[in-house]
C-alpha cells in the first residue's frame, strides 16, 4: 500500500524521468482543460436549460440541451489538442523530452487554447440563444 502510494507520488518528484514527466504533464493539462470546459458547462447549464424549456418548439429545445455540453467540451478539447509540441522550429522528440521548461510552456499553451475554446463556445451559444429568444417572442406575440 505504502509502496504503491509512493510510486504514484513519484510523478511529483523532480527526479522522475523526462519521459514520465512529459506523459504526466500532457495528460494533467488535458484533465485541467476538460475541468475548465465542465466548469463553464455546469455554471451555464441551468439558465440555458430554462431558456430552452421556454421555447415552443420542443425539438429545438432538446437540440439546445444536448448540443450545449457537447459543443462546449468539443471546443475546449479541440483547443487543448491543437497544440503542436514540435513547434515552429520542428524540434525532435528528444529535444522536447529533455527540455522541461519547454514542456511547461506547451502545457500552459494547452490551457490557454482551452480557455480560448471556452470563449468561442460561450460566444456561439449566446448568439444561438439570442435567435431562440427572438423566435419564441415572435411566436408568443403572434
Amino acid at each position: 500500500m505504502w509502496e504503491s502510494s509512493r510510486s504514484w507520488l513519484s510523478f511529483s518528484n523532480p527526479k522522475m524521468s523526462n519521459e514520465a514527466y512529459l506523459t504526466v504533464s500532457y495528460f494533467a493539462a488535458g484533465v485541467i482543460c476538460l475541468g475548465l470546459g465542465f466548469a463553464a458547462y455546469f455554471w451555464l447549464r441551468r439558465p440555458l436549460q430554462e431558456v430552452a424549456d421556454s421555447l415552443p418548439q420542443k425539438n429545438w429545445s432538446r437540440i439546445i440541451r444536448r448540443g450545449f455540453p457537447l459543443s462546449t467540451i468539443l471546443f475546449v478539447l479541440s483547443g487543448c489538442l491543437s497544440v503542436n509540441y514540435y513547434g515552429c522550429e520542428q524540434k525532435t522528440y528528444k529535444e522536447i523530452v529533455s527540455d522541461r521548461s519547454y514542456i511547461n510552456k506547451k502545457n500552459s499553451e494547452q490551457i490557454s487554447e482551452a480557455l480560448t475554446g471556452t470563449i468561442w463556445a460561450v460566444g456561439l451559444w449566446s448568439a444561438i440563444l439570442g435567435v431562440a429568444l427572438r423566435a419564441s417572442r415572435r411566436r408568443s406575440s403572434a
Partner: protein
Amino acid sequence: MPTYNAVAFFFDVVISLGIVLLFYALLGKSLRELLDKTIRLPAGSTFYMRALVVVLLCGALTKVISGIHLKPDEHFMEYVWAVARDTSNVFDNLIVILLVYVGIVTILVVVLKPKNE
C-alpha cells in the same frame, strides 16, 4: 529560478482578475437591468450575465496563464515590464471581448425590443 517568475506570475493573475472584477462591477448592475427589460425571462438574463463572467475570466487568464519565464539574473524592471506586457495583452483581449459582447447585447435589444416602464 523561478521564485521571481512565480511572484511576477502571481501579480499577473491578481492584476488580471482585478481588471475583470472592475469591468464587471462597472457594467454588471445596469447590464442586468437592461437584460431584464429586454429578455423578460430571468433565466435568459442570468445566462448572459454568467456568459459575461466566463468570457471575461477566460479572456484575462488566457493571456497570463503562459507565465513569465525570465532568467534569475534579470533586473527588477524587466519583471515589471513583463507584467506590464501581459497586462496590456489582457486589456487588448478584454476590449475585443467586450466589443463582441456589446454587439450581441445590441442585437438582442434591437430584435427583442425592451419593455419601457
